[in-house]
């Protein structure tokens, strides 16, 4: 029992309160039976209140960590938004930095300061008195150390629904959309919990009345009620696994506060096909002279309406995976940041003059990953300081990259048959999963020998992105993140080359927080029997 402030605790000798006098009079008249009714009411209320709670507590975790790679300017960051367990509540944001720059050398690559801003973006029906959507609700500064590693801070979310995290380094800023989930139980689950709770309460009432009542029929009333409540509960529990899941807000349908908080009551589309039209990509560069640092601006538009595409999903840990092949065959695997609706931006040092081939992998809300190849690519004119072209890489075999021995082995590469490329980096199992994978293999070809690689890649029929997955321990709730350096040293990729010819390969792994790119050339033969 809690006492309100100002309540005086009765002391011995005080006048007995009126309620106590009435209670003692009732006790004298009816004996201890009179205590049964208030005790039962308290018990039933407790059962009902506590009985409803498991609906919130024992479901699966409602959210999960979101990993998003961001090439902010020219530096590669991995932004990790930890799971939100309660709303309003804290949101832990961690930024993982890498050694060196991946797409150029700019100021502040090693350390620096980031500003993180949280903005709710969701429309909702209720006027909840919270700050309006579109305004900054929480903000924090994050100082990145000179050594690569994880730097984190804590922000605060005040409502479920769609949000955007802005990562700003003063020059460039990227927006990361994500959804803060709300605890949800399906209507049959709610009915089951309520039915069983009420049945439990009525059972106690039936037992109590059977023991204390002088009328034979009185216990039958709660007993019948208990049977009815039990039937309701069993029906709810039986229907629970059969209830169709509502569409996932943010993944399948546009998220609003309402469909995140109550997905079962929100109206849902009749058509269960959530896919959306394909995307067109326009590429513009702020510089087209070699030797300069350029901002590459991508404009993604809807293939049907032409409107900016605002619904990209985080897939394979990034909103957009941009692949750029330089004239001499250097590869960049970048993750442009969202600068505005349909607008993505990345910094890139255009070292060589010539033609750059560009493609992007992305997924729209509703599902389906698409490969968008820039039809124009990018032409870069000669600058004042020409940069040496990348040498032609060798085929399978050993080589040394950044002081590390790399072995590349390939099973007989033949068109139409599965070919396995094994890349062994170093001698110890110390590879870190990058974008959730032990390794990435980019395949472009078949390429004619005489043409510069960039121009040849522009028209190459095949652009492949092969993964070597990180094994996940059985029963592990979440996957290992980039700080776990225990994979490899081999990464195995299996890909079926559709056509014979000469392909360019780039295998990518992470080691010591640095990205290692292994270029190679692979000649794929025609399958036996083909002419």
């Amino acid at each position: 029992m809690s006492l309100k402030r100002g309540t005086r605790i009765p002391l011995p000798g005080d006048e007995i309160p009126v309620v106590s006098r009435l209670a003692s009079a009732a006790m004298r008249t009816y004996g201890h039976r009179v205590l049964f009714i208030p005790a039962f009411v308290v018990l039933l209320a407790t059962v009902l209140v506590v009985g409803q709670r498991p609906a919130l507590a024992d479901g699966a975790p409602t959210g999960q960590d979101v990993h998003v790679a961001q090439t902010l300017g020219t530096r590669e960051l991995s932004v990790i938004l930890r799971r939100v367990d309660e709303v309003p509540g804290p949101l832990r944001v961690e930024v993982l930095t890498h050694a060196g720059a991946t797409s150029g050398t700019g100021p502040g690559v090693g350390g620096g300061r980031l500003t993180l801003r949280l903005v709710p973006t969701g429309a909702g029906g209720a006027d909840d008195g919270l700050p309006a959507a579109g305004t900054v609700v929480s903000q924090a500064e994050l100082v990145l150390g000179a050594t690569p590693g994880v730097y984190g801070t804590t922000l605060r979310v005040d409502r479920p629904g769609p949000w955007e995290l802005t990562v700003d380094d003063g020059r460039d800023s990227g927006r990361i959309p994500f959804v803060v989930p709300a605890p949800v139980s399906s209507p049959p689950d709610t009915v089951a919990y309520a039915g069983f709770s009420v049945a439990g309460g009525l059972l106690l009432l039936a037992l109590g009345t059977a023991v204390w009542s002088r009328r034979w029929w009185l216990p039958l009333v709660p007993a019948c009620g208990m049977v009815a409540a039990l039937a309701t509960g069993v029906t709810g529990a039986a229907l629970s696994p059969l209830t169709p899941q509502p569409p996932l807000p943010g993944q399948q349908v546009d998220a609003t506060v309402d469909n995140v908080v109550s997905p079962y009551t929100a109206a849902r589309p009749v058509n269960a096909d959530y896919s959306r039209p394909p995307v067109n990509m326009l590429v513009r560069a702020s510089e087209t002279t070699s030797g300069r640092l350029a901002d590459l601006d991508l404009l993604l538009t809807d293939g049907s309406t032409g409107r900016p595409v605002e619904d990209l999903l985080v897939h394979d840990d990034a909103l957009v995976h941009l692949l750029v092949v330089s004239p001499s065959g250097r590869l960049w695997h970048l993750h442009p940041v969202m600068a505005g609706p349909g607008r993505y931006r990345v910094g890139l040092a255009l070292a060589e003059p010539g033609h750059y081939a560009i493609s992007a992998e992305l997924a729209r809300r509703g599902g389906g990953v698409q490969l968008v190849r820039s039809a124009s690519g990018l032409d870069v004119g000669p600058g004042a300081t020409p940069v040496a072209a990348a040498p032609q890489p060798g085929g399978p075999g050993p080589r040394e990259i950044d002081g590390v021995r790399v072995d590349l082995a390939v099973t007989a590469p033949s068109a139409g048959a599965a070919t396995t490329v094994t890349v062994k980096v170093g001698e110890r199992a110390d590879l870190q999963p990058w974008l959730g994978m032990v390794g990435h293999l980019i395949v472009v070809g078949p390429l004619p020998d005489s043409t510069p690689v960039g121009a040849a890649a522009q028209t190459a029929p095949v652009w492949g992105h092969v993964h070597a997955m990180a094994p996940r321990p059985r029963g592990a709730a979440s996957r290992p993140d980039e700080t776990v350096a225990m994979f490899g040293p081999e990464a195995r990729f299996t890909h079926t080359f559709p056509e014979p010819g000469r392909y360019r390969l780039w295998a990518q792994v992470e080691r010591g927080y640095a990205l290692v790119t292994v270029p190679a050339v692979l000649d794929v033969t025609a399958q036996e029997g083909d002419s």
Partner: protein
Amino acid sequence: MRRRGAWAAVCVAVLAGAALWLLWPRGGSGPTVLRSGTEHYRVRLTVERSGTGPVTVDVADLRGRPVTLRGVTVEPVMTNMGHALEPVPAVAQGPGRYRAERLALPMGGAWAFTVLMDGPGGTDRVTFPVLVTG
């Protein structure tokens, strides 16, 4: 006997009340009201449930005072279908209130209404996902 009848009546009343509570229609058929905002404005969108009626846009600044804008346009799009309708200019009705008439949606489903607000600080845009029934 009379007391037993009273108990039966109480039980029936409780059961009827529970059934009524379970089956009571929720949501009603009133207009859909959605609130969102941008960096500069708070926006409230009111859509008639049928989707054929007018759309009302109430624009206020971040302190809640109505804002007069140069123009407000509503762009209905059905993203899944790859279908965009002609943008409908909204006519000023009062302080901060704009109304777009004749928003003839050809079908029900998942629509997105993008509201463009042309103000002194440039054009702000906010998108409301609206599920139109019927």
